């Protein structure tokens, strides 16, 4: 991966392609959780490739051995290289030792996304969460990363390090997608 990193395209061009990607995936899913899972899977493939390229370019010859080290690398270097600015913060969860949070107050991919009401908690930054998981995976950390919208805007990327067997066996939760009807119609139906 050699090309200089400062090459750019218009953000809107990316958004058009991303929107096609999401729309295409919308045709194949039953719930918003499934859409997020699809985006995470795509992101994961992407993250694995990115890790090598970033290490190569920054001439980093040693791999990160600590969770905090790699997460710092992700939230600053990788974030900046991929999404133009460092993440707003990296925090460790107070409840659990193995849980971390990266906060981005305005994720790049969500710039032009508005989530329809019937898809409730969907966050298209799931693609970015996938990338984070992919990078961690490539750096030999088993981890899960999920994106959650914040009430005040922006996205929290929740990262859980380590295998979680109970989680893995669970089927993704099915949330019924229903068009939002006005109240009167709902009474009739």
């Amino acid at each position, binding site marked *: *991966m050699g*090309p200089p990193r400062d090459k*750019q395209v*218009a953000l809107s*061009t990316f958004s058009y392609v991303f929107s*096609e*990607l999401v729309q295409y995936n919308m045709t194949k899913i039953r719930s918003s959780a499934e859409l997020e899972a699809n985006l995470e899977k*795509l992101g994961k*493939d992407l993250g694995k490739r990115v890790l090598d390229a970033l290490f190569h370019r920054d001439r980093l010859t040693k791999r990160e051995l600590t969770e905090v080290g790699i997460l710092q690398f992700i939230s600053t270097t990788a974030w900046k290289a991929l999404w133009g600015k460092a993440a707003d913060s990296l925090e460790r969860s107070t409840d659990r030792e193995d849980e971390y949070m990266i906060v981005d107050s305005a994720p790049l991919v969500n710039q032009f996304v508005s989530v329809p009401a019937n898809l409730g908690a969907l966050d298209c930054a799931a693609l970015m969460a996938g990338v984070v998981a992919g990078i961690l995976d490539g750096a030999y950390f088993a981890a899960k990363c999920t994106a959650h919208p914040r009430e005040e805007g922006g996205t929290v990327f929740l990262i859980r390090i380590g295998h979680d067997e109970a989680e893995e066996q669970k089927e993704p939760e099915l949330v019924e997608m229903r068009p939002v009807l006005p109240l009167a119609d709902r009474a009739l139906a």
Partner: protein
Amino acid sequence: MAQQTPTSNSVKALRARGDQVWARMPKCNAEFFRLTYGALVVQLVEDCDDIKEVNDKLLSMGVSIGTRIIDEFLAKSNQREPCKSFEETCEVVGRVAFKMFLGVEADVRNWNEDKSRCSLVFPENPLNENVELPPGKNFLYSNIICGAIRGALEQILYKVDVYCIKDTLRGDDTNEIGITFVSRLQAEMDDQYKES
């Protein structure tokens, strides 16, 4: 020679405008863009039975992008008045729109006699870097760009045929997209808007 001077002047003007508009566009890392597009293509390849289906799908995605991208183009590109000819339209697509959205300029060449067919030549394609295609398949990786041009021109009532001619991914020396003028469309109202 006398005729060439105004054309090259306007090429210069268009190029300057392209640079100017490009400088004002919010941008995003080309690598992330490319990887995301790659992920989309991979997903399509996995889902479709043959390459032709993938090519068609990419084209139709492009058309749907094109119908929306034209609005942004007209809003941001300082295009004060409509183009006067198909030739001028193609120049604007290559010099301004390409620069504005993809960060590269496309050269408009190979006009036929009655100015109804030309090709956009751009040695550097932001979609193509770090991509390798499986050999021996007629894979049109940049078909989405063809679709976008078609969709956009359709909105300004040009029916055109857009197709890939050369692609560096397939071993050609440059990237070339052909545009052929088919007809002018008529702006028509849908029946439901007509007064009865």
